[in-house]
C-alpha cells in the first residue's frame, strides 16, 4: 500500500536519503575524507529536491478554488518540476566546477576501501529510489491507456501510484473528506471514498454509474490527468536520484580502480609523485636529484602512479554532467512551456480557429486563447461574434463540441452581437478600457501599433485579434451595423512578423 501513494514514496525516499546523508557525514569526519563530505552534500541536495517535490504534491492536491487562487493549486507540480530541473542544472554546474578543479589539482583518494563501502551503500539507496520512481521516469507515457479500462487500471498495483491522489476532495483537510463523504451518502459517488483501498473502489464501481459525473471515464481521466501533471514532478525527482546514482557509480568505479591500480607513496621513504604539481614538487625534484646522484638509492624510490588514475575522476564527472544535462533539458522545456501559457503541442490553433469560423452563425472570432493549466486541464476562451442572441444559442453547443474534440474542456465563450450597437462589435473591452488600458490588456500594446498600420482599423478601439477575419463577411456586417463597428483588422501577418525572433 505504501508504494501506491506518491507522497508515501517521496517520504520513504526522503527518510532514507537523509539517514544516509547523516551516516556519510559521520564517516567522513571519522576518516577525515573531504571527498566523502562533498559527496554527502550531494545527498543533501537530493533531499532538497525530494522536499520540493513533496511540497508540490501536497499543494497540488488542493484542486479547489480558493480565495488566493481561483484555479486551485494544480499547477504546483509543474512548478516543482521546474524548480527541480533548474536545481539540477545548477548542481551540474557546480559539479563541473569541481571537476575542473580536480584537473588542475588532482587528489589521491585516501582510504579507498572506506570510500568503496560508502559508495556502494549510496548506490544501493539510489537504485532503490530509481525503482520507486521508475514508472514516472524519463518517458512521458504514464497511464494514457488507462482511459476506458477503469477496472483494469485500478487493479494494477504498481501503476496504482497516482490513483489515491485523484479525488480532489481527498486532500489533507478533513473538511474536504467530510464533504465528499456526504456526497457518498447522497448519490453514491466514489469521490468521497478514500482511494487508498482498492477494494472499496471496486465496490463503488457499480455505484459510480449512478452519478453521471463519476462514471467510468472521469476517474480514469483523473488518473491520466493526475498522472501527466504529477509525472513532471516525479520526473524531476527521478532525474535527481538518477544523477546521484551516476555519482555513486563514479565514486565506486574510481575507488575500485584506485584500490586496484594505484601505487601509493609509502609513509616513509623518499617518494616521487609526478602527478601532483604542488610546492612539494620542488622538494621532490630536489630529492630526486639527490637520489640520482646516489645510484644505490634510486631503486628504493617509489614513483606514485599511474597518473592517469588521478584524472579519471574528473573525466567521469564530465561525462556524468553531460548525461544529466541531456536528460534534464526536456523536463525543463516541458515545464517551462506550460508555465509560459503556450498552447499545448497537440492542439493546432489555426485549425481550431478555422473550424470555429466555418460554423454558420459565427461571423468572427477573436481573443482566442488556449492554454494548459496543468496536466490535461486545458482552458480556452474566445469571443464569438454572432448576429443575434438566438443564433448564438443554436451555435453554442457546436462550439463547445469543437473545443471538446480538441481536448479543451473548460471554456468561456463570450458572444458578441453585431446588431447590438453598444458593444461596437468588439466588446472585448468596453468603453472604460478602450484606450487607456491598452497596455494592460493581455494583448494590448503590441496590437496597438499594428492596428495603426492596417488601413481598415478605426482609431477608436484596439485591435487585439490574432485571427484573420474573412473580409467579405465582415463587410456585410459592417453595412448592417452601426458605423462605429470596427473591423477586426488583419493583423495576423504583422504579428507574425514581430514574432519571428
Amino acid at each position, binding site marked *: 500500500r505504501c508504494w501506491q501513494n506518491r507522497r508515501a514514496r517521496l517520504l520513504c525516499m526522503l527518510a532514507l536519503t537523509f539517514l544516509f546523508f547523516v551516516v556519510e557525514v559521520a564517516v567522513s569526519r571519522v576518516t577525515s575524507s573531504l571527498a566523502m563530505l562533498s559527496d554527502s552534500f550531494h545527498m543533501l541536495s537530493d533531499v532538497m529536491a525530494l522536499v520540493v517535490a513533496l511540497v508540490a504534491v501536497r499543494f497540488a492536491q488542493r484542486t479547489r478554488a480558493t480565495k488566493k487562487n481561483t484555479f486551485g493549486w494544480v499547477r504546483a507540480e509543474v512548478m516543482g518540476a*521546474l524548480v527541480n530541473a533548474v536545481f539540477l542544472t545548477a548542481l551540474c554546474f557546480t559539479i563541473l566546477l569541481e571537476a575542473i578543479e580536480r584537473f588542475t589539482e588532482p587528489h589521491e583518494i585516501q582510504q579507498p576501501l572506506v570510500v568503496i563501502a560508502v559508495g556502494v551503500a549510496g548506490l544501493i539507496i539510489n537504485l532503490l529510489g530509481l525503482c520507486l520512481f521508475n514508472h514516472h521516469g524519463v518517458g512521458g507515457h504514464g497511464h494514457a491507456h488507462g482511459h476506458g479500462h477503469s477496472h483494469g487500471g485500478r487493479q494494477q498495483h504498481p501503476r496504482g501510484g497516482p490513483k489515491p491522489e485523484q479525488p480532489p476532495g481527498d486532500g489533507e483537510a478533513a473538511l474536504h473528506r467530510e464533504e465528499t463523504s456526504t456526497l457518498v451518502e447522497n*448519490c453514491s459517488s466514489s469521490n468521497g471514498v478514500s482511494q487508498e483501498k482498492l477494494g472499496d473502489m471496486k465496490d463503488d464501481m457499480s455505484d459510480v454509474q449512478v452519478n453521471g459525473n463519476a*462514471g467510468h471515464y472521469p476517474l480514469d481521466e483523473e488518473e491520466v490527468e493526475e498522472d501527466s501533471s504529477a509525472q513532471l514532478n516525479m520526473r524531476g525527482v527521478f532525474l535527481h536520484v538518477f544523477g546521484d546514482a551516476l555519482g555513486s557509480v563514479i565514486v565506486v568505479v574510481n575507488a575500485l580502480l584506485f584500490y586496484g591500480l594505484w601505487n601509493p607513496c609509502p609513509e616513509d621513504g623518499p617518494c616521487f609523485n609526478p602527478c601532483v604539481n604542488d610546492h612539494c614538487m620542488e622538494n621532490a625534484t630536489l630529492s630526486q636529484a639527490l637520489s640520482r646522484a646516489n645510484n644505490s638509492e634510486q631503486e628504493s624510490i617509489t614513483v606514485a602512479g599511474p597518473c592517469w588514475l588521478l584524472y579519471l575522476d574528473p573525466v567521469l564527472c564530465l561525462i556524468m554532467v553531460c548525461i544529466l544535462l541531456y536528460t534534464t533539458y526536456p523536463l525543463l522545456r516541458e515545464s517551462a512551456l506550460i508555465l509560459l501559457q503556450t498552447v499545448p503541442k497537440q492542439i493546432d490553433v489555426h485549425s481550431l480557429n478555422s473550424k470555429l469560423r466555418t460554423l454558420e452563425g459565427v461571423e468572427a472570432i477573436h481573443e482566442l486563447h488556449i492554454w494548459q493549466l496543468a496536466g490535461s486541464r486545458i482552458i480556452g476562451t474566445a469571443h464569438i461574434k454572432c448576429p443575434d442572441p438566438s443564433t448564438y444559442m443554436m451555435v453554442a453547443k457546436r462550439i463547445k463540441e469543437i473545443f471538446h474534440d480538441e481536448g479543451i474542456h473548460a471554456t468561456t465563450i463570450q458572444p458578441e452581437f453585431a446588431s447590438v450597437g453598444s458593444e461596437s462589435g468588439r466588446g472585448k473591452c468596453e468603453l472604460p478600457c478602450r484606450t487607456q488600458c491598452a497596455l494592460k490588456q493581455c494583448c494590448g500594446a503590441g496590437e496597438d501599433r499594428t492596428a495603426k498600420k492596417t488601413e481598415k482599423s478605426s482609431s477608436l478601439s484596439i485591435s487585439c485579434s490574432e485571427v484573420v477575419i474573412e473580409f467579405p463577411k465582415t463587410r456585410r456586417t459592417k453595412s448592417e451595423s452601426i458605423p462605429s463597428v470596427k473591423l477586426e483588422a488583419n493583423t495576423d501577418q504583422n504579428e507574425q512578423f514581430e514574432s519571428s525572433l
Partner: protein
Amino acid sequence: MGRYSGRSSRLILMCVVSLAIFAVEISVAYVGNSLSLASDAFAVLSHLISMIIGLFGVRFSRVRWHKDSTFGFSRADVLGAFGNSVFATALMFSIFVEAIKRFINPQKTEKALLVLIIGVSGLFFNVLNYVIFMECCYCHAPPGDNETGDSPNDQKSPEEGPEKKKEKKSEALNIRGVLLHVMGDALGSVVVVVTAAIFYVRPLGGASCNWQCYIDPSLTIVMVFIILSSAFPLIKETSTILLQMVPKGVNMELLTDRLAHVPGVSSLHEVHVWELASGKNIATLHVKCQSPTDYQDAAYKIRKIFHEAGVHSVTIQPEYADHNTSQLLCSSPCISKACDSHLCCSQREPPRAKTNGYVEKSESSLPARLKDNGSRKSDVEIPMEDPVEEESVKNVKNCDVSDDKSQSGSTRF
C-alpha cells in the same frame, strides 16, 4: 529596428564583456595554477548564464503573438526571473557547502597579493555591471520597443503614467533576477578582497591556521544569507504569477460581491482572475442572467467593475437559466460529464459561486446539490447529449429530485 531596445543591447554588451573576463581569468588561472582564480572565473560564468536567461526573457517577452502561444511570450520575463532566482539559490547552497567545508578544514590564502589584485578587479567589474544595469533599466522608460528616453511619459495621458511604471516594474522582475547574481558576485568579490587583504597585511607564513583562516567562511556565510534574503521575495513574487494566483491588488471577495450585485445578474460562477505578467490581469467568468437584454446591460457594468479592480481583459460567458436549474452551477460546462476531470475546476466540487444577494460559501453549500451537476437536462443552452451518459443521467434524476426539493425548501442562507 524595433527589436533591440537599449536594454537588450546593454545586456548583450555585458554578456560579451563577461565572456571575455571569463576567458582571461580561466587562462590566467591555468597558467598561474591558482585555484581561487578558477573559481572566480566560474562565478563569472554563472553570472553569464543568468544574464543569458535574462536576455532571453526580455527578448521573448516582446513577442505578442506566436503560433505556439496565444498570449505571446510575455511571461518569459517572469519565468526568466524565477529561473534566475532558483539558480541563484542553488548556487548559494553549494557555496554554503563550500564554506562549511572550509570551517571543518580551514585553509590559508596563499599568494595574497595576487588574489587581492584579482579580487579588486572582480569587484570593479561587478560594480560596473551593476551601474550599467541600474542605468539602463531603471532610469529610462523602457516600454518595450521604445528607444527614446522619457518621452512616452510626457505624451500620453496621466493615466498612462502609472502604466508605464508598471511596465517598468514588470521588466524589473527579470532584471531583479539578474541583479541577484550581480550582487552575489559583488559580495563574493568583497569577501575575497577582505580575506586577501588580511592575509597580505598579516601573512601566516608556515604557521598553522589561526582566526584568520575562519574569516573567509564566516563572511561567505553572511553573504549567502544576504543573497537568500533577497532571492526569496523574488521567488515569491514570480511564483504568484506562475501559479495563476489572484494578483495582489485584487480582492476576490469584494470583487465577486460587487459583481453579484449588478442588476440583471442572477448568479456567477467560475470566476477566475489571474495575472499574465506584471500588470496584465485577465478574468473569465460565467454569469447567469434571465434574458439576453439583461446580459447586455450587465456586461457593461461588469466590465466597469473589473476595470476599477484593475482587470482589463475580461471574457464573460452568459448563461440563461431556467428557474429549476441550480443558480450556482455551470449550465454549460463541457459537453459531457466525462470531461469533468479536465475542467480547470471540477464541477463535482462545491463551486465558489455567488448568487445575487447572498454569498455562497463553497464549504457550506449543500453537498447534495453537487449531484445537480447531472441535471443538465434542464439547461437551455447546452443539452447534454452524450450517449454514454444517457443511463447515468436518468439515474441522476434521483439526485435532481432531491436537489429541487432542497432548493425550493432552502432559504439559501
